[in-house]
């Protein structure tokens, strides 16, 4: 086996400091990494429109990731005794290549699959999609963004012809009279974002829909706005009820609807059945609050002379087996008020992962090619094939969305080899216990990571890769702005960049084309592949995005980018937004005898996603500190638990024990558990429901029926 020679990496840090962005969420707070006295790097916040110089504790402590004790710096291969042991890159590659060949010889190209991540740089997201389709020849690639942005993306594409999380700069929120957050908790998930809610709060116009009185819901207290606290899984109905109340109050922007929206009459008629009292009955939200919220929104709407209003959705509304319908209902409400495509108003979703936006645009999705192109569109295939230098017919067709893909692993006809890059599905997938079982049934599981995450520990081959501050590339933030992720230090010896790994594996597998390994070169190729597509990056480059704001679409060097979209027309064939009647469907795994409480899942401020990174930052607390169950005092009293005593939560799929946190923040019919779990021995996603949205493939993370009881003494604690 021969490989193109590559320079051995050396650990080197910039002497003067490096401007970059936070490794975690999609807010991508700007920071500067500066050499500290101890020779390490230290974080300083940078002024930037999104974070306005702010950082949360995760951001401040991000540099600790560079010094985690259990950093993987050598490939590891599972030996005959079942133990992971250090190996050479050559050994790891040989193991991978032979397993791929054996599996594909027996079962064809789709015997190998790829699971990517929304934290990968644009360059890596792009290259991973290309690697899967060109080097592995498999149709089977999907990614953890399916668990994140897929419902919002599907609904956005359907309504507007294009999905960009926020089709306007985040800072625009500050001028609005009202902001409606539907199932979003930025005060925990991206704290500096809430700076942009200050204006709406001052004017009493922050409205938060959440079954929990979250930290974000608490921002509505004391006259700053309204918290609507529905039963979980009833967001569609609540949004239809709000729409009804807007219509009943003659609050619709009829000129806008006539000029810019199609299909409106059917949507308006669908809301006629959801008057506030009936909505109250279905959602548990008092009718008076529904009317009050509608009045706030109408008064803020531009056609009523308000300063503007925004409707923003988050995972709480989207991570349902009918999340696409929920987002559609939120979009309909925004359309009724005449918000999308207007300066100072709009609809958007808050992207979760660091590159959740860019990660969904460049080919990690099972049905998409770079530039947000459809893989079934012949023209799109021809365009991308030309950039890749392959025959269009050689590009496989659509694969399977994440939950389906993970469920097929190791089953007859399913993949036997899986690559995981930038994801931790052993913790983060719904019904995670079943997913771990599937991962265990593979012939070969290859995981690229920089720490031994729960998924990496299950791998047959672990490939050590650089992390955030050790790599170069770009990220696309929640507002569609392309940002520069700059290398502030070299990765440790022994680590190889994914771009290099894929290039080398492609070469070993006899791929028809070479893969670029320089991020600048890859980005230029991505630009060409995306040119003319919906997410067009052709006019951007590394230098430009570091120098000036560049929001996609940006089709050429002279183009100034697109901070605000849809001002003249929507990206649909007709140029009008499409109002779609949402279905009203109940919770998939609903309350029943033996499971009479709803389980809600979510995040805490000091942890990020599965916790694979943040659980290793000492300042953010031990993983077990982030395992708790919020229980209403009446429920605690009923089942006989107190603050701190263990409670057992059991769903149809699994069981979980956590210390009780007694709080009135949850409804008495709900319990709340954070889903972080890496580094711990219990995973809340072992309980969650893998039922998926028929349009987006999003699983129903946010609600399922559980039994809640006092745990037997000492169990699991």
């Amino acid at each position, binding site marked *: 086996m021969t490989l193109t020679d590559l320079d051995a990496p050396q650990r080197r840090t910039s002497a003067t400091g490096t401007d970059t962005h936070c490794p975690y969420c999609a807010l991508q707070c700007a920071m500067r990494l500066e050499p500290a006295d101890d020779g390490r790097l230290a974080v300083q916040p940078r002024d930037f429109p999104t974070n306005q110089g702010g950082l949360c504790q995760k951001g*401040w402590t991000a540099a600790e990731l560079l010094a985690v004790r259990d950093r993987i710096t050598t490939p590891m291969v599972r030996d005959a005794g079942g133990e992971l042991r250090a190996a050479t890159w050559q050994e790891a590659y040989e193991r991978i290549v032979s397993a791929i060949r054996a599996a594909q010889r027996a079962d064809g190209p789709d015997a190998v699959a790829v699971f990517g991540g929304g934290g990968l740089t644009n360059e890596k997201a792009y290259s991973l999609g290309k690697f899967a389709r060109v080097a592995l020849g498999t149709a089977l690639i999907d990614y953890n963004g399916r668990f994140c942005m897929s419902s919002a993306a599907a609904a956005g594409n359907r309504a507007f012809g294009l999905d960009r999380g926020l089709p306007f700069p985040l800072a625009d929120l500050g001028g609005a009279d009202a902001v409606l957050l539907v199932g979003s908790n930025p005060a925990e998930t991206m704290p*500096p974002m809430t700076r942009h809610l200050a204006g709406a709060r001052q004017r009493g116009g922050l409205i938060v829909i959440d079954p929990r*009185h979250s930290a974000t819901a608490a921002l509505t*207290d004391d006259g700053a706005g309204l918290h609507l606290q529905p039963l979980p899984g009833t967001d569609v109905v609540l949004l239809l009820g709000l729409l009804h109340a807007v219509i009943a109050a003659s609050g619709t922007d009829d000129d806008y609807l006539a000029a810019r929206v199609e299909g409106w009459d059917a949507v308006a008629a669908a809301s*006629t059945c959801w008057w506030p*009292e009936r909505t109250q009955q279905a959602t548990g939200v008092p009718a008076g609050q529904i009317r009050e919220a509608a009045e706030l929104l109408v008064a803020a709407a531009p056609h009523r002379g308000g300063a503007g209003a925004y409707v923003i959705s988050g995972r709480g509304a989207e991570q349902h087996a009918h999340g696409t319908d929920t987002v559609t209902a939120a979009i309909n409400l925004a359309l009724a008020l005449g918000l999308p495509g207007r300066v100072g108003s709009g609809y958007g979703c808050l992207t979760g992962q660091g590159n959740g936006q860019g990660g969904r645009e460049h080919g990690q999705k099972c049905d998409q090619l770079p530039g947000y192109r459809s893989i079934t569109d012949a023209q799109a295939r021809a365009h991308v094939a030309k950039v890749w230098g392959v025959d269009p017919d050689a590009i496989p067709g659509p694969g399977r969305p994440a939950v389906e893909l993970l469920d097929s692993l190791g089953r007859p006809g399913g993949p036997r080899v899986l690559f995981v890059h930038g994801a931790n599905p052993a913790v983060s997938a719904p019904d995670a216990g079943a997913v771990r079982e599937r991962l265990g049934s593979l012939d070969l599981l290859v995981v690229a990571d920089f720490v031994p995450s729960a998924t990496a520990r299950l791998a047959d081959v672990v490939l050590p890769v650089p992390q955030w501050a050790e790599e170069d590339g770009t990220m696309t933030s929640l507002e569609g702005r392309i940002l520069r992720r700059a290398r502030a230090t070299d990765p440790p010896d022994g680590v190889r960049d994914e771009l290099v790994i894929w290039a080398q594996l492609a070469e070993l597998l006899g791929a028809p084309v070479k893969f670029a390994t320089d991020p600048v070169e890859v980005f230029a190729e991505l630009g060409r592949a995306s040119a003319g597509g919906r997410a067009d990056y052709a006019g951007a480059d590394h230098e430009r995005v570091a120098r000036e704001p560049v929001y996609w679409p940006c089709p050429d060097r002279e183009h100034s980018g697109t901070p605000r979209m849809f001002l003249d027309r929507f990206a649909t064939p007709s140029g009008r937004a499409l109002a779609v009647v949402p279905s009203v469907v109940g919770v998939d795994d609903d309350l029943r005898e033996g499971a009479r409480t709803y389980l809600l899942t979510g995040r805490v401020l000091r942890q990020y996603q599965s916790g694979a990174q943040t659980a290793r930052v000492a300042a953010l607390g031990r993983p077990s500190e982030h395992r708790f169950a919020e229980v209403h005092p009446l429920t605690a009293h009923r089942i006989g638990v107190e603050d701190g005593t263990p409670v057992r939560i059991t769903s149809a799929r699994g069981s979980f024990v956590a210390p009780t946190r007694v709080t009135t923040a949850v409804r*008495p019919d709900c319990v709340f558990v954070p889903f972080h779990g890496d580094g711990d021995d219990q995973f809340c996603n072992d309980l969650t429901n893998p039922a998926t949205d028929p349009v987006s493939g999003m699983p129903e993370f946010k609600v399922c029926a559980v039994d809640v009881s006092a745990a037997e003494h000492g169990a699991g604690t």
Partner: protein
Amino acid sequence: MSGDMSGDSNAHRVVVVGHGMVAARFVEELQTLAAPGAVAVTVLGAEPHLPYNRLLLSEVIAGRANINALTLPAASEPVVVRADTTVVSIDRAAKAVTDADGVVHDYDTLVLATGAEPRVPLPTSDLRGVRTLRTIDDCRDLVAAARPGRRITVLGGGLLGIELACGLAHRGADVTVVHRTPTLMDRQLDAAAARVLADSLRAQGIGVLLDVEVIDVVGHDGAVCGLRTAAGAVLPTDLVVASAGVVPRTELACAAGLPVEHGIVVGANLRSPEDPAVAAIGDCAQEEGRWTGLLAPGWEQARRLAHELAGRPVRASGSADGVVTLKARGLSVVTMGTAGGAGRTVTLSDAGAGRHVSVEVAADRVVAATCIGAPDLAADLTAAFERRTPTPKDPTHLLFAELPTGTGAGQGADRTNLATMPGNATVCRCNGVTKREIVGAHAAGDRDVEAVAARTRATTGCGGCASAVEGLLAWMEEVDPPSDTRPANATPLSTPVAADAHATLGAHPSQGSP
């Protein structure tokens, strides 16, 4: 003369008589569920309008709903909808109905959804000024008639009567509700609850006359000017709105020889026992001896019949039935379930506050409840009733859901007394900075928010705690004024108000440095 020729010749022909809320729901469901071409649906509606939400007419009266916003989802091709079409007869032998224009519509299944009409409990008279509220046209008339100061008598203190009374009062009319029993909403409320409701109405300036039987109208110049009671009194009025319940429209069924009692008799399959080709749903139907006149059961019937006709399995929805919610400004009345079972009942009656809550619990479930004047609690009780969630150990707690809640989930600090909050209370959530650390920063010489931020990172996340940090610094200045001679990192000499904070200062004089 033949009717519609639409649809496949093999399609099962369904003719729906009536196009109200239940018929509209039935057609919508059937259209969604049936295989393409499997059914050919014709809807014959007597009103000239698209189907609309009748329940919201009282909201229009109250000025809370736009009359143009009541339209229900319209049936689309290939369903044939004929508005302004009254059916005059059914020929069951020929399986056909004839409309007023003489057009004959053949059916394989006939669905009667003829609804009900308002009952007017008065002798027939030609006097102007006696009205009902059933149709959109009635609603327009009533809105036009409800001028400020006009004396309007609502005859009947049931759900709709009270909604109407409140709506008309909101328009400035001088409204009196006259009810023939001593108990308002007597289908839903007991005497105690009804008393609180009557008081609430009176508090809104609405007259309430109970246990008064009206036997006739009194006229002047061809218009009504009063109502004569059984006791011989005359109640002066300018307008009477009869709201004394509804009577199922059963004439067509009667004439066709179908069994009719209170409504058109149907079995559990919603078909007439005499003729399985004829079904009845909604207000005109009496299913297995039961008739409610409520929308939810009608919609449930529509759903079941649509499933059956589409060849889909028919399952009961399992949803708890019988939540009744009054829609009126400034008045909240919600009832659910049937009280008086074997359960345990807890009651809170607070007439002074216009509040009355009664909850019956059996086998750790809410089986019935009445909730007046407690809107947020009503929403919670409805959720508990419908979802059958476990009740608290002590059901009394069900009455106190509206207790003020201190969740601790919020920014907290700026709303709390800074002096007395404990040292370990979090001031800056984003960076996990406690009061203790900020006090420590002050002790170490930090005198402004920037300095505290540089040391502790407080305020550097969402920025929401800036005012709390400022407040803490001001408080420290007060209790521990700076001394020029004291070194910057010394602990304060005087004792701050909170002992906890002081103890902290000694222990961690400079905690929180990044």
